């Protein structure tokens, strides 16, 4: 009896998971790099949203797949903000504001935090992704969130 149920359950779940999420054709968030951000800010100042993530962070993946795909989030980020997605563990050197920022923890730590993240995304000295930072036109931080935010929360934070 349980065996038949088992087989039934496998197929039901496969079907369920295999169905693509209801198609959303609102495009996607236009993510910028820090270099692009600098040029954009110089040309036309706007508020800035930065998503600090790492590739091992479950909640970050969830935000990518479920939150940054919502039309209202995409619209807000594309229209009112420059949106930056930044891997906090990247090893790349980044030139920003006339300075070269590097990941000085590479080879020293298992989860090396890039200087940009050290500057903007630490909370009591710790980095715990996802960290979401909102800055004003003068690049001054107005809010930081150290947790997963669903689209409702994110929209109200962005407004």
């Amino acid at each position, binding site marked *: 009896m349980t065996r038949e149920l088992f087989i039934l359950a496998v197929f039901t*779940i496969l079907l369920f998971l295999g169905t693509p999420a209801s198609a959303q054709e609102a495009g996607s968030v236009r993510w910028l790099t820090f270099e692009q951000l600098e040029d954009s800010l110089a040309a036309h100042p706007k508020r800035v949203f930065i998503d600090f993530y790492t590739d091992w962070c*479950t909640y970050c993946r969830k935000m990518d797949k479920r939150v940054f795909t919502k039309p209202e989030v995409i619209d807000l980020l594309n229209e009112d903000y420059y949106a930056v997605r930044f891997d906090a563990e990247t090893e790349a050197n980044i030139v920003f504001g006339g300075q070269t920022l590097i990941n000085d923890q590479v080879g020293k730590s298992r989860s090396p935090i890039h200087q940009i993240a050290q500057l903007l995304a630490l909370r009591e000295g710790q980095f715990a992704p996802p960290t979401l930072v909102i800055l004003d036109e003068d690049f001054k931080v107005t809010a930081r969130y*150290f947790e997963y935010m669903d689209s409702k929360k994110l929209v109200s934070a962005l407004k």
Partner: protein
Amino acid sequence: MKYLTILTLFFSCLATYTYGQTTENRGTLSGKVSTGDDGLPFASIQLMGTNIGTNADEQGNFRLEDVPVGQQTLKISQVGYQSLTRTVEIKGGQTTQLDIDLNEDLLNLEGVVVSGTRYEQDRVSNPVVVGVIGEKLFNATQSIAISEGLNFQPGVRVETNCQNCGFTQVRLNGLEGSYSQILINSRPIFSALNSVYGLDQIPANIVERVEVVRSGGSALYGSNAIAGTINIITKDPVENTWEIRSNTALIGGEAVDQTFNFNGSVVNESLTSGVTFYGMSRHRDSYDANGDGFTELVRLENTVLGAKAFFKPGEDSKITLDFSALEEYRRGGDRLDLAPHFTDITEELDHNTFIGGINYEQWSKNDKNKFSLYASTQSTQRDSYYGGLGGGRTPEDSTLAINAYGLTDDLAVVAGVQYNHYFNNNDVIILGIENQYYDTRDEIQGYNRLIDQQVNTTGFFAQYEWKPNEKFMALLGGRYDVSNVDGIYTVGGINRSADVTVGVFSPRATLLYQVNENLRFRGGYARGFRAPQAFNEDLHISSVGGEPLFVILSDDLDKETSNAFTGSLNYTKSMGLAQFNLLIEGFYTQLQNPFTQVSTGVQLPNGSIIEEVRNGEGATVSGVNFEAGYSPSGKFAFQLGGTAQQSNYSETQVIFEPEEGDENAITVDEFVRNPNLYGYFTSFYNVTEAFKIDLTGTYTGSMIVPRVVGANGSPDLLDSDPFFDVNLKASYNFNISDDLNLELSVGFRNLFNSFQPEFDSGPERDSDFIYGPAAPRSVFFSVKIGNLY
């Protein structure tokens, strides 16, 4: 309040002693907060871990009196400036001067919204040593059921107890299975009956982690957790995931073990509801090591289906629901294709188990209070056959064999309420009431055998988590349990019954002292007790000399009590990419009136052999658990752990007591079936991101093993040889697309075929004469498909 003062005084004395101050135990701290050359007005100065604090005046000057002596950590903060923490030494009766310079917070990082609950973080420091066996380890050892992966923690050893039915139990610090409490999602619904075969029935793929606490450290869990608790925590969903796995193994070159697994989870975007599904279907052939036609490994057919769901009605509340349906068929003995009563020995069990639970949590608006309400249940119906012709072919043998079919009904219900209050200074108090009810009825009419037992335990518990400063933390608590056992135990013409109520108070205390950044000291004391009742082994029937062997409780069995002490040192250090950890833990457990099985030499008219559970001599179990790990980088890690212990009866313990004038009694000084040295190692090497090699193994030292030789059940005591059971696994991951991964793995379990060299043979064998690794060498091949790597 009086007690609190005393405690504070006690701690102050401790601090005084530690820092060699003899004058007074209070000092004064004063100083000035400035930014650049200017005084900074109104900054807040807080002594971390206490309520002591003040604000600077308009010029930035501050003064704090009555500060406890010793190292104190201060937090200085002001809106618009970057907060600072400083550690200062306060001397008794003196004023310590401290000037602080705060930097302006140019990026405005401090003054903004700070929240955080759902983020990725490591564990927090805990005064109880919690050993964790994670999903990774179950994967590395290619464990199908939980029982196959538990050996990889110090002090934990899973042993196989029967060739006819594959009864396994887990020993903690050398104490038998019934001294530990197995929890599923923190609830004690694993009944005596479940602990006979249950560890084989729970698939490893539903487990997020197994938490092992040696020696009952926390007052939150039941008093019968004398040796410790093993908490099986099933997966909590976050992402939308799915995974299907197939594992094929060939055991000893002949027996096929085929398993299919799946799990998947769906969680909504706001993380307010979600569900995880899981399932397993397993078929394992029986295995006969010595070619006598009788099994050493039983045939298994196991199907599991379950789910765990959560729902958050509001921001501050959460409801969790879980259920599992387990169906397991196992059979061992000889001629497995015949009806059991035509064979010489058959042990055949068909389990239908349902486990379910509901949990409700409510937080207060300010997050200072948490209230939880929970109820869990487990129900099992079991058809059993323990018997057979036993080598004989007389009409009496046939009559006995055909009447050896049995029926078991088992029910466990656990319900409780718990209240947590979080104080401003980070202390926590927990209060709760829990009721546990177990009802077991196991009947085999042919043997006139009946166990009909109801155990009800009501427990009241309280625990205070005390954190007077950053370095010291203590868990102080206790529980009061009222246990009522109402049981009828019958075999043949022997009738026993129990109707006892015992009330016992069990205090618990553990403390943590952070000597420095790298070194932690922990110590603990726990009292525990077990009310007289039938445990796992009493529900299992072995076979000896072609006759069934029953265990029955003796009359006037008294409760068993224990005192357990532990102390440990834990050293952890990271040097750049390299990580090193070392744990050394001493344990000392005293048992008073331990329940002990004594073979009485009594045979029933139908030939059955009887063992009796009596209050044995006192016993002491003591030793050292150790664990050392080194990992030079994320690519490679090595961990070694183990236990060196002694388990001695305080006076010589009789395990075989013949009827008068028959034979001499057989006695032991130490526990049987328990090695004095055992351990494990685990290692992995990530050759590339996709290619990974795992090498793991366990060591089982020499031990005393009883082997029944006499027709009346008298045993010989043998010294076993040590075993070294090594597993090797290589796996490769193909990243087919963003949403699809395929992993192939191959390997060996018990690579060097370290297995019991000699078994009893034929219908009259002693079925309990089995020890060492659970299975001979097997080769496996596994395929895993899923959307996550």
